[in-house]
């Protein structure tokens, strides 16, 4: 049996110790918010926090999680209250949504470490995540929005200048 903490709760899992944490979370613990996309740490969809650090759970064994604290998207906040989740909704980020759990978990760990990122910082941090629907522009805007919400009260004009502008629309 392997014991570790998931979203603040201690769990005992009987799976083989070389089982990827991804499948332990999904199949044994029924936490399906963490997604399977590639299995080789190329897409980021399986990202969870291991002691607060983002890891690809498809390449993290159950053994590596033993005795540690795992946080999944389900445990990021109660009622989607994390500023990133609120920003994700405000910016209407997701399309199919499949990659978004991993994106949000990565961004959450990133902002916790780097609360005042530049746009370049954001892209570097998030580039390991593939979004086939191409929501990249809104992901960047949502992270900037959440960072701003956490940061100074006074608006930083640089943060609001986005390259991903969307034009006006002609009203009829």
């Amino acid at each position, binding site marked *: 049996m392997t014991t570790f903490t998931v979203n603040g709760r201690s769990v005992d899992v009987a799976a083989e110790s070389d089982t990827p944490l991804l499948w332990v979370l999904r199949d044994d613990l029924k936490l399906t918010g963490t997604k399977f996309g590639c299995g080789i740490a190329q897409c980021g969809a399986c990202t969870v926090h291991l002691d607060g650090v983002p890891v690809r759970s498809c390449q993290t064994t159950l053994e590596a999680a033993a005795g540690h604290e795992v946080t999944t998207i389900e445990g990021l906040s109660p009622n989607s209250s994390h500023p990133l989740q609120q920003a994700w909704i405000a910016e209407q980020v997701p399309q*199919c949504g499949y990659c978004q759990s991993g994106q949000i978990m990565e961004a959450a760990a990133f902002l916790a470490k780097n609360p005042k990122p530049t746009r370049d910082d954001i892209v570097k941090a998030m580039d390991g995540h593939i979004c086939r629907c191409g929501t990249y522009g809104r992901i960047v805007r949502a992270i900037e929005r959440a960072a701003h919400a956490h940061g100074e009260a006074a608006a930083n004009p640089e943060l609001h200048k986005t390259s991903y502008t*969307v034009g006006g629309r002609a009203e009829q």
Partner: protein
Amino acid sequence: MSAALTQSRPLSRRSFLVAAGSTGAVISFGSIDALAATGSAGIHSFEPTAWVSIADDGVVTIMAPAAEMGQGVMTCLPAIIADEMDADWHKLKVLQSPSDGQTYGNPAQQGFLMTHGSLSVTGYWDKLRPIGAQARKVLCWNAAQMMKLPVAELTTEPGFVVHKGSKARLSYGEIARHAKLPDPLPEADKDDLKKTSEYRYLGKDVPRVDIPHKVNGSAVYGLDVILPGMLYASVLHPPVQGETAEKIDDAAAKAVKGIRQIVPLPIPLGPLGSAGGVAVIGETVEATKKAKALLQVTWSNKAAARSYDTKAVGQEYAKTAADWSQKGVDMTAFNLSHGDAAAAIAGAAKVVKADFLSEHVAHTCMEPLNATVRVDGDKIEIWAGEQSPSIMQFICAAVGKTSPANVTVHSTFMGGGFGRRDDGPEVAEALLLAKAMPGTPIKVVWSREDDIANDTFRPLVAQHFEIGLDQNNDIVGWRHRIVGASYAARALAEIFEKMGGQDIVTAGLGAELNYKLPAHTVDYVRAEGGISVGAWRGIAGGYAKFAQEQLIDEIAAIKGIDPIAFRLSLLQGQPRAQRVIETVVKMAGWGKKRANGRALGFAYSDALSGHHALAAECSVDRASGRIHVHEIWAATNPGFVLHPRNLEAQMESAIIMGLGAGLIEHVDITSGVVQQQNFDTYRVMRMSDVPPLHIEVISTDDHPTGAGEAGVPPVAPAIANAVAVLTGKRLRHLPMSPERVQAALKA
């Protein structure tokens, strides 16, 4: 929440179909709890009664008939009904419709539940507005009785029927508590529909109903379905599409802990694309994956694909495309062909000839294919994220030897569709395994490697053009030949037959040409090599526009006029087309001097309806051959825009896929073996690859047309046109890889 209405009128059989057939509206009143199923977002397993249901607490539940794959139909289609009936958006619940095509099918899809071809909004627009209007009429009729007032003096505000004079009002919830269904149900006609100016939700940026579930892990995708007693299955697919397992040594596989059964699945390469092989059923995904790796299988060596090499195939198709002695099928349907282009060209002063080649690309939806199926007698239940429940019903009826009426599809969310989730090989595999274990739900999970190797790729296509010009260099005739494998022969066999071999996907939709030409013909030559092809976002538009929009630039150059002016002259009498072009011209600053080493390329597209234009500012690194796209401006007019913000998102999304297909994506096949295996070898656009995108959405009071794919076709030609300005060289081969750019520069 409970009310006399609920008790006295049990919901499941209390449906009332409008016999007139004009709207097919079904309305009932009752408790929402009776309609809700498992409580998990996205999964439903109940009997339908209505498009609209109103609970006595005022919550309005509206059915979403099309498949939500991120394109926003789960929001904008119910919004049509919600607006016409003046439902309160804050008291709205949306449920995915059950797989009952007769009630919920798309008129633009022969009344079936199919979501592809950018036809959802355009198909449901005239069906759903009367349904909403009818619901409003029923509410007012009831309110009139309850308030003892004439119906003519009543109007509605969101969630309320209001008396115009006294302002007395009844909430929809109060009405639901006492409501009856008038007999006969009132018809909704044109005068009952709202004018555009009266819309509260349509044309506005309402928040998407699925998004809250997609930021906290609660959205249920096919892969997330968990049922009691469920087992998992992995499938060892043949190394080359079309081979079968001749000898299976499963001793080591069987010995893996948690494995239940090894099941050969001899599914022939056919309508589903590549499927089957040898399946491993087990208690966990990992166990089945481990066991699959231990299977020792001797495969047959007879598949046609064994001699499929993408390089050779491309050369062969190119030869065929340029050889008019090889007969093709005239694409007379879909308004693609008109006039006698061959005759016009024969008499032309000058003939411009060009050949284009485009490689296979893969779908790589973020969620690998999967499906959960349970068989109980002759009843089949599927849980999966599929674009077309109707297609899945047909497939299961055929494979399971039952009738489509016995097949229930529980639609979950899906992690990407893009045309892939229409083929159903994973559903067929799960069905056959479920038949081997009746009563046990079997979930087939494809690995990413399975997903790429067995994809139904966008066809590898060679195109040949001959364009006749008169002595003024005006176009007299335009001949376009498309050579490639047939999607329709595989997936739409009956239609393909009926249309005499015209392929709506490989050589049809997307290859439209809106310009005013005296004669334009498109013909299709089918060429098969044993590799299954599918519908990939933008379908023929992705490669047809790459060619067409470059040729327009080239002919403009021959004529010595500005390529924008040339396009506008060919679009006389088409103000919507001209407007998107002029909008992008303004947005991008066409005509202004660009920074050193940069040029602007332009493309217009009418592919898949609507009007779209795009400009790309690019530079070329001559040493490496790498094209750098610095910035993109695009304008789109798909008629009336139901959800502007969502449309912008769709354009961004499709443009990014267009960049991928234009610059980097490709599938190499050597002796039938797909060389790309996962995201390390099949490269797609990442965040750092995306340039700044500026999108302008133009809404006009025209019948709404599709927008999910429209952003793809104009991307590659705009880039190629910019490269031509910078280098004087034409790129004819997709993707426009650095190697190909270098080769063009040397030529």
